[in-house]
């Protein structure tokens, strides 16, 4: 293979990308070497098994991916603003909408939410860590290496260009030759391992490690949403694993699952993909619902209205999420009866979702609402998400879908639900739990400016797309006709508004790090659940003494009775797991193996797979049982953290 086949050549934008990658990497290496931070990085972060640090790394990576996916979005919006634009070629445009979709769903939304779960869920249930701390680190590194594998495709080998759904036969070896599509397959496969492990980890953590006395129906609602999400992950992700593996075998080893030769069935891919893909939608929306419930209850200063109805509607949504996948391809010839069945099951999801909307409104009813930034994101979510939901019901009508399908109406719909649902929740959750993670609040004023830019930009960007879609503009086109121009210009302006909002959000992180007042207590917002019972910064063992829980909103009760999580009389030695470098090394080797498969270099793939198996053996022989934190050290740490 020639070097100019290995690197992507010929695009000025990609040369700029290469230069910036080299510069950023060099800068990072220089800074770490100059300040002698390599050892610190390895000991404190790369080998950590602390769920809070892993969560922070997830969130940081997800923010980086949001930036990358956002840049893709802006480039697309520039290209689509005017007819006959010459900014991106058709091939480059195909690659960009493919990577935009994949990055945003797989490498931004899910990791962001999993990051928040990692930081918060053990704290909410009064646990000292997750059930399998080293596996948790492994999950993170599998996500990060998977994301990196996918991301390098734009400078090495070429990006996938068959859409984030990668429908066959378009994505098959005949019509998408070269490594691009393999990057998609292996990037998702590698990060999928970690997602499945996270699902198992959180199920066991929540079932087995709750504080004494905490019944299932006393768990905070975000923990509930995590548990339900973990169930969906465990039962949906193996389907993706199989689908990706089958397509990889098709492309690399010449099997005939999805081909047009050998009696293969391209529609099998559409079915397998959406049997995972639809539940995936709920993997990214249910935790968001959990976050909004926490934020709204806290800033309405009331108990969440209809707690049990909220939980049951989440469970119902999770069950229904597996029964609606055909609504993604009503027009692909399933027939009237099948379409009707899936149309009805799709409509059913609106019922529990409606229940949740009414419960949030009832929580706000007659309450003293505090308009903090976190709560603004939550409040803005309700009407925005309803617009997305109602248009979703329109799309769910099979007959009408023949009109809307593959038009910008659909694009507007899913951006309305995914951004107003998931992205708003990521921001709400990050702002809300920020003081717990970093010991200071984000600046409220800058937060409000970024919120308004993003919110208005969002509606300006996507609302016109409903109309341009009804006007007949299809999705995935790289150029437009003059009739669609006015609404597209508006849409592009909105996209830049969102970009500005995000930029201010990121600036706010820097500004607040420099100037925000440090938190004195752990209870920054007068919170209701156990994560606020810990001091800030949270000691690595979380709770010096684990409280006994008697009610939903456990911390409210503790505040009334004057109980704390540091009862000097009751402190006992705490058992904690040791840090380990095995997860990052193992996933680094898995990255090499995946890279070998991407380029179909079998020697590299086999060497990498052997390396992974050897690492599993090393792990099996590792009997490190962790260590005990002594009582004196706990007392010292707590007194310092609590400024006693």
């Amino acid at each position, binding site marked *: 293979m020639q070097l100019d086949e290995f690197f992507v050549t010929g695009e000025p934008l990609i040369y700029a990308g290469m230069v910036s990658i080299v510069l950023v990497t060099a800068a990072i290496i220089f800074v770490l070497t100059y300040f002698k931070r390599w050892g610190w990085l390895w000991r404190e972060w790369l080998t950590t098994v602390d769920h809070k640090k892993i969560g922070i790394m997830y969130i940081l990576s997800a923010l980086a991916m949001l930036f990358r996916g956002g840049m893709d979005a802006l480039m697309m919006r520039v290209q689509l603003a005017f007819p006959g634009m010459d900014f991106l070629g058709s091939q480059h445009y195909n690659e960009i909408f493919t990577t935009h979709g994949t990055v945003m769903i797989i490498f931004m939304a899910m990791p962001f939410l999993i990051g928040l779960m990692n930081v918060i869920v053990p704290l909410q249930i009064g646990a*000292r*860590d997750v*059930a*399998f*701390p080293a596996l948790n680190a492994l999950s993170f590194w599998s996500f990060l290496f998977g994301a990196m594998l996918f991301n390098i495709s734009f400078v090495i080998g070429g990006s996938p260009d068959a859409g984030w759904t990668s429908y066959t036969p378009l994505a098959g070896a005949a019509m998408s030759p070269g490594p691009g599509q393999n990057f998609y397959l292996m990037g998702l496969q590698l990060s999928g391992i970690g997602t*499945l492990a996270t*699902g*198992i*980890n959180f*199920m*066991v953590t929540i*079932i*087995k*490690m709750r504080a004494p006395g905490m019944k299932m129906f006393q768990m905070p609602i975000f923990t509930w949403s995590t548990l339900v999400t973990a169930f969906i992950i*465990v*039962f*949906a*992700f*193996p*389907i993706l*694993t*199989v*689908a990706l*593996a*089958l397509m990889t*075998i*098709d492309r690399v*080893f*010449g*099997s*005939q*699952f999805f*081909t047009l*030769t*050998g*009696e*293969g*069935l391209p529609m*099998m891919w559409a079915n*397998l993909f959406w*049997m995972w893909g639809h539940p995936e939608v709920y993997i990214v929306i249910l935790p968001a619902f959990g976050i909004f419930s926490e934020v709204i209850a806290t800033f309405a200063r009331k108990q969440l209205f209809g707690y049990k109805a909220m939980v049951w509607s989440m469970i119902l949504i999770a069950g229904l999420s597996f029964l609606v996948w055909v609504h993604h391809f009503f027009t692909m010839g399933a027939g009237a009866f099948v379409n009707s069945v899936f149309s009805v099951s799709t409509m059913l999801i609106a019922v529990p979702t409606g229940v949740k909307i009414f419960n949030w409104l009832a929580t706000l009813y007659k309450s003293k609402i505090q308009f903090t930034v976190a709560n603004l994101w939550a409040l803005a979510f309700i009407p925005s998400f309803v617009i997305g939901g109602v248009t979703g019901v329109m799309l769910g009508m099979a007959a009408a879908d023949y009109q809307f399908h593959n038009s910008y109406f659909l694009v507007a719909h899913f951006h309305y639900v995914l951004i107003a649902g998931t992205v708003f929740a990521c921001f709400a959750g990050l702002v809300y739990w920020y003081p717990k993670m970093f010991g200071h609040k984000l600046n409220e004023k800058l937060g409000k400016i970024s919120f308004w830019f993003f919110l208005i930009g969002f509606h300006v960007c996507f609302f016109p797309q409903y109309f341009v879609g009804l006007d007949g503009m299809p999705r995935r086109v790289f150029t437009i006709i003059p009739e669609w121009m006015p609404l597209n210009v508006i849409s592009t302006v909105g996209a830049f508004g969102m970009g500005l909002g995000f930029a201010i959000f990121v600036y706010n992180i820097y500004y607040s790090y420099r100037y925000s007042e440090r938190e004195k207590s752990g209870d920054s917002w007068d919170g209701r659940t156990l994560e606020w019972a810990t001091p800030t910064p949270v000691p690595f063992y979380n709770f010096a003494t684990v409280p006994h829980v008697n009610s939903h909103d456990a911390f409210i009760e503790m505040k009334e009775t004057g109980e704390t999580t540091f009862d000097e009389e009751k402190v006992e030695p*705490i*058992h*904690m*797991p040791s840090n380990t470098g095995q997860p990052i090394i193992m996933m680094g080797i898995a990255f090499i193996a995946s890279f070998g498969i991407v380029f179909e270099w079998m020697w590299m793939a086999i060497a990498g797979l052997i390396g992974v*198996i050897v690492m599993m*053996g090393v792990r*099996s*022989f590792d*009997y490190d*049982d*962790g260590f*005990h934190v002594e009582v004196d050290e706990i007392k010292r740490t707590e007194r310092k953290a609590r400024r006693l």
Partner: protein
Amino acid sequence: MSSHELKSGPLEYRIQQGQMNILGFWIFLGAEIVLFSTLFATYAVLFGRTDEAPLPSELFEPGSVLIMTFLLLTSSFTCGIAIHEMRRGSKKGLITWMIVTLALGLGFIGLEIEEFIHYAHEGATLQSSAYWSSFFVLAGTHGLHVTLGIGWAILLLIQIAKRGLTPVTSRKFFIISLYWHFLDVVWIFLFTSIYLIGMVV
């Protein structure tokens, strides 16, 4: 994270981490069920799509498949005895019966490889048609699981020989026994839905 140890009950359940690992593995088996179900569904949909390649009824023969079934079902039984010996506290019994289990598993794998080579020889390969792709990937995934299980069990036998029966080693063995029985159950479905149906259709 508690290292508190219970005084009674099976050894593998006595520390909380053991209980959690076993529960976690049950959930993992749930994910494995979904994985195999997806492969079975793919196989069912692609059934009969043999293109120019031979039909399964021309190739499948009861003989060696029955022997394979016999070997694997027996290995599940001997694996049960191994766990029984573990519960009795007999390290030697555990090791002996586990070696018998692995020998039976190896026999199964050997026959399966021979079977695959035979089919390929007759013109049915991974590449020849959609049906045969799904056959080789479904049966092959099961075979790969058995092979990994054998390697995994050998590592555990070394640990048992070195460390004896502790809450940690017994938990590890209990988990691999769950895995082994699971593969046996999957094989029963493979045997009926691939071989028995394939022979008559």
